[in-house]
């Protein structure tokens, strides 16, 4: 499935506007081995006091090999109390997934994970449903 989707780096740059990204402060929980790519649980937590003066503004997820790089952008703020978000995502194939955080001082932080996606042994024929 070849397409002209942005690379992971390009996707990250579109989010950060080219600003420097530090691989720190972001804890990215995603299983390294996934038995079905349709619903992969992920949790992103960012080390932050979440005060009005110092908090996480956005958390974004990007992928390397799906038809589209974007996964989600979450908007947080001081009322969040904790910078922690969980969801379930789709991964089309084994690939790298990136979690990015933007803090209120305009800085960017990230964590990466490499995920192996196995498929069900007998994939159901869509016409047989």
């Amino acid at each position: 499935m070849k397409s002209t989707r942005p690379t992971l780096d390009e996707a990250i740059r579109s989010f950060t506007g080219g600003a420097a990204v530090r691989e720190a402060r972001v804890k990215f929980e995603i299983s390294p081995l996934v038995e079905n790519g349709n619903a992969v649980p992920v949790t992103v937590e960012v080390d932050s006091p979440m005060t009005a003066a110092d908090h996480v503004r956005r958390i974004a997820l990007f992928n390397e090999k799906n038809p589209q790089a974007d996964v989600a952008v979450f908007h947080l703020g001081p009322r969040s109390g904790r910078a922690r978000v969980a969801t379930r995502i789709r991964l089309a194939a084994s690939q790298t997934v990136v979690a990015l955080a933007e803090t209120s001082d305009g800085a960017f932080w990230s964590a990466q994970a490499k995920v192996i996606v196995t498929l069900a042994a007998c994939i159901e024929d869509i016409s047989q449903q």
Partner: protein
Amino acid sequence: MIRALVNVPKTARRGEIIEVRAMIQHVMETGYREGPNGVTIPRNIINRFVCKYAGEEIFSAELFPAISANPYMAFSTVATGSGTLTFEWTDDQGETQSTSAEIAVT
């Protein structure tokens, strides 16, 4: 007819950080799948989710086709006072679905 499950603690202490969960039934059709006869099934997803607490937005999300069907999200907020949390999902056609839950804060 909304088919959603939200989970908010019934009570909390003022200042306590509580976890909120929201899940809605939706196929989240990616727009990249082929149906029988090779015809692409058109994209149809929920692309935005907003949670408000006593009328003020406390969390929102921009969602893309890579979010799983029947989208689930868990996030946190500070229990500031008794009131209503509202949950609103918007799809590609601009249609919204919403539900709410009450919290008592002491």
